[in-house]
Every structure is written in C-alpha cells, then in structure tokens.
C-alpha cells in the first residue's frame, strides 16, 4: 500500500467512524440517561436516509432537504417519546427490547409501503461533487471530507452542550438521580423528551448525510444498529466521549480490515469488541 492509498484509507476510516458516532452518540445518551435500550435506533438512521431521498426528489437539493429533515426528525422523536417511550422508563429491559423490536417491524413495513423496496440513489450536491487530486490517478471526494467536518463540528457542539450549558448540566444530573432532579423543580419529562428527540435527529442526520455515498436501501438500519451497539459497548454506556473514541476505533478496524483481510472484514469489528470486553467489560470510558 503506497502512501496516497494509505492516506485515502485513513480519511475513509475517519469519515465512516465519525458518521457512526452520530448514530451511536444518540444511542448512548438514551441508554445512559434514561436507561432505555432502543433497538429501533437504527431505524432512525434508515428513516433519515429515506427522508433525504424523498425530500431531495421534491426540492432537488440535498442541503435544503437536510435543513428541512432535521426539525422533522426532531419532532418525530419527540412525538415517539411522548406516545411510546415515556411508558418504558419503569419497565424492565426485556419489555424495552420487545417494544422497540416491534417498532423496527413497523418502521420497515411502513418504509416498504410508502417508498417501495428498491434501492435508491441520492445525488451529491453540485457544489460538493468535486474531488481533490492526491496523485496522478487517485483523488478524494470533497463530499466525504465535508461529512467528516460536519460530524467533527457536531461532536464539538455536543461536548459543548453537555459540559457548558444549563441543559447539559440538567441532563448529566438527570442521569445520576432522576428523583432528585425532579425535586429541584426541573421538568424531567421534558428533559427526557429533548434528549430522545436529539438522539433521533442525530441518527436521522447521519442517514441523510450517508444517503449519497451508501445509497438508500431496505434494511440499512439493522447493520448500523448492531455496529452502534458495539460502539456503545466499547465506549461505555452514557459516555459521549467514549462513543467518539470507540466509533473512530471501529471505523479504522472496519476500513483497514476490508483492505488487509477482505475475507474476514465483517469480523474485525467484533474481534475489537471481544478484546475490549476481556480488558474492560464495562467499556473503556465507563461512567459511575
């Protein structure tokens, strides 16, 4: 592998890892703060991608579609929390697994009913469709760089939100002691609704950003869900920072696994997880 190819693979690994971080960060927040295991989180990624496809075919512009799609996803998340998830906080994990598994079936069939079962493509917006030449034959697409930059900015924003704002403080407090936060006069239900909706919006955004490079296809939520689980396990439940590190680790393991041992590429990610489990069963950045 020459240096340029190596550089491209590093950029790919980062881009993939950072995109996974968007999905996993919402998952880990909902786990950590509300204690809810949400199997349907991958569906939000799928919904985001289909939303990007549907809105882009209407508006003709992916950037505009994303701008429209984020508030839609956020509202959808808030609605879902109000209708269903708010009933799950006091139930055990098994019932959470059950209900969210049912939701996956519902989301997949609604997708099939409304959008069909075909694979769709979404065009990269014209202004980002260029490639940066790296050598005579190799180049790197601007859009992939853009994804990395957006995800990094969001990671920084999320850190700022959690550590430096009043909302973040309330969220962190709520994850430690729900009753105490409530006793202090904070509307914990509203807080939970906000966090859940934020998680849905982040996962949907990941789907929308990924739509042009991965295309839009049935079942795309399932594989992302399981990889996100692996990330949350490695990073430690509830740790956004852990999710970032773990997502990058997985991005590199997967990308370089595909380059170096193509036959066993699917396994690389899980081997990393097994090693981390031996070393630290509760994740690298375990909380509390």
């Amino acid at each position, binding site marked *: 592998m020459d240096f340029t190819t190596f550089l491209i693979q590093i950029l790919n690994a980062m881009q993939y890892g950072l995109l996974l971080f968007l999905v996993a960060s919402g998952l880990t927040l909902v786990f950590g703060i509300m204690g809810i295991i949400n199997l349907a989180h991958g569906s939000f990624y799928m919904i985001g991608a289909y939303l990007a496809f549907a809105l882009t075919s209407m508006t003709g512009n992916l950037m505009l579609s994303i701008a429209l799609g984020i508030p839609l996803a956020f509202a959808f998340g808030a609605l879902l929390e109000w209708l269903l998830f708010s009933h799950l906080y006091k139930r055990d994990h*098994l019932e959470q697994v*059950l209900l969210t598994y*049912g939701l996956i079936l519902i989301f997949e069939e609604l997708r099939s009913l409304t959008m069909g079962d075909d694979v769709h493509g979404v065009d990269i917006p014209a202004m980002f469709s260029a490639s940066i030449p790296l050598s005579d034959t190799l180049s790197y697409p601007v859009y992939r760089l853009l994804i990395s930059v957006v995800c990094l900015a969001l990671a920084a924003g999320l850190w700022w939100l959690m550590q430096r704002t009043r909302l973040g403080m309330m969220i962190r407090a709520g994850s430690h002691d729900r009753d105490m936060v409530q006793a202090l006069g904070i509307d914990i239900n509203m807080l939970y609704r906000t966090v859940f909706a934020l998680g849905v919006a982040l996962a949907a955004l990941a789907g929308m950003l990924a739509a042009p490079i991965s295309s839009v296809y049935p079942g795309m939520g399932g594989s992302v869900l*399981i990889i996100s689980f692996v990330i949350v396990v490695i990073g430690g*439940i509830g740790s956004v920072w852990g999710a970032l590190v773990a997502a990058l680790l997985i991005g590199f393991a997967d990308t370089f696994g595909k380059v170096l041992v193509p036959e066993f590429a699917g396994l690389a990610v*899980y081997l990393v997880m097994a090693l981390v489990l031996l070393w630290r069963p*509760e994740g690298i950045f375990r909380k509390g």
Partner: protein
Amino acid sequence: MNPQNSSRIALVLKLVVLAGLIAFPAFGSSFYTEMVAKILILGIFAMSLDLLVGFTGLVSLGHAAYFGIAAYTVALLTPKYDPADLWLALPASVLAAAAAAFVIGLFVLRTKGIYFIMVTLAFAQMVYFIFHDTALGGGSDGIYVNFKPDASIAGWVPFDLNEPIQLYYFVVVALVAVFVFLTLVLRSPFGRVLVGIRSNEHRMQSLGYATFHYKLAAFTLAGGLAGVAGFLYAVLFGFVTPEYLSWHQSGNVLMMVILGGMGNLAGAVIGAFAFIGLQEMFSDWTKHWQLLMGGVIVAAVLFMPGGLSALPRRIMKKVNGERENG
C-alpha cells in the same frame, strides 16, 4: 383454587395437548403436519431461551447463533451423496452449539443488563458473518442437507426420517424429552441456584455460590438445547442459510418466549404456536404482515404484561376481584 389442584390441572392439560399432538397427523394434511413440526421445533428453541431469560434472568438477544451453528454442523456433516449417521450427527450438532455457547459465554457473561443484551447480539452477528462472508457453508446462498440423517443402528432401522410422519413423531419425542429434561434441571439444586440468580445475584454470591460458573453452565446448556432445535430444523427443511443465525431469528424466538410468558416452559411452546399462528394469519391477509406483527408486539408490551400464559390468571383475578367488590 389451591396450588396442588392447579398443578394437577396443568399436568392434565399438558397430557391432553400431548395426546392432541400425537393424534394430529391422523387428521391434519401433510402441509399442516410439517407446519406443526416446525412450530414444535421452534418451541424447543424457545424453551432453551426461556432457561436463560425466564429462569436465570439473562436476556440473550443472540440465541439464534447456537440454533444456526447446529444447523450448519448437520449440513456440513452430511456427505454429498449419502445420509449422515443420526447417532453421530445429532450429538455432534448439539456439542458444536454448546461449545460455541461456552466460548461466547466466557465473554458475554462478564457483562450485565443492557450490556449483556447488546453483547450477545453482537457476538451472534459475528457468527452470522462467519457463515455469510466465508465459503465455509456456501456463503450467503446457504447449503443443502441433501439427505436426512440415517437412524439405523448396526443394520437395524428403528425409524426413517425420510417419512414425514416419522420425522414428525421424532420431533414430538424431542420436544417431550427437552421439556422433561428442563423440568428436572429446574427442580434440581442447580436449577434452584439459577432462579436465585435471577431474583438476586448478589445474595447468591454472598451465600457462597460462584454465580459466574452457574450462569456459564446455564448459557452452555441453553446453547446446546438450541442446537437440538437447529438440528431438527435443518433436517426438516433440508437446507441451511445464514438467515438461521440472523438477529431477526434471535428477536423472533425472544418474542415467542415473552408471548408465552417467561419462566414457563409450556408457555414457551404456546408462544411458538401463537407467534407462527399470527405470522401465518397475517401473511394470508397481506404482504405487509410485519406491520400487523409489530403492532401486536407493541400493543402486547403496553397492555398485556406477563404474556399469553398469564392471561387466564389475570382474567381469573379480574373476575374474582369483581366478585369481591360486588
């Protein structure tokens, strides 16, 4: 109703159901005989998971891995132009599944709660990729079991699995055997420890039980019994695909356990009947049957805690309660 009476009624009910299962092929068409055989196999699968979920308190979302490993084992042990020896293939499949559960158990049992759910799912997905991505078992196309295993012992042929009816009875016998075996296990001191772990693992630890070893034994046992189901499923349908190990399969069997009410072996079998029954009914109505299935599952969680087998008790409670009030 005193508990002794109600357990006697439960036993009578089970025997009546068993008699019904034995008589079924005389009345049902071959299509339905095969479907009932399929349901009974899934019932074995659900019982094996119930040992973990319902009795030990371990929510595994990757149980299809062991089902699939056993199915692949019989497929790979069957020569191209000959049947495999049943008395070799069956134990080999079960052992392969149990061995895989033992190794994976060493990793996953280091975790608890939500972690455990996620990690069992992830390891099952790893096994899925082993069979999906490599040529070992025909890749994503799967592999045929060209011949059903041969049951002959030194020239004597006690039964022939190529006969659908005999295969059906073989499945019924396996179901009863697994049911009785698990009932005995749960009544033994070992089973008592498992139930103790479910209600309070810390207390069991302070009583001096090495709970990790008990959980590992339960996990291995459940994997092996899932292997019995996987073996039978592969023999019944004659082919094995990676979908046998997919996480949807793990999810479906968990649905069966919960639908039937956890911690109840007969309930697991009822759950398998209910799940496949609903699936058949809905897919008769519409191509988008999963929408209805998903709706039923969501509604069941919201409105029916305890599953189907808790329904009679809940109704009784309601009736009695109203009588007391009135």
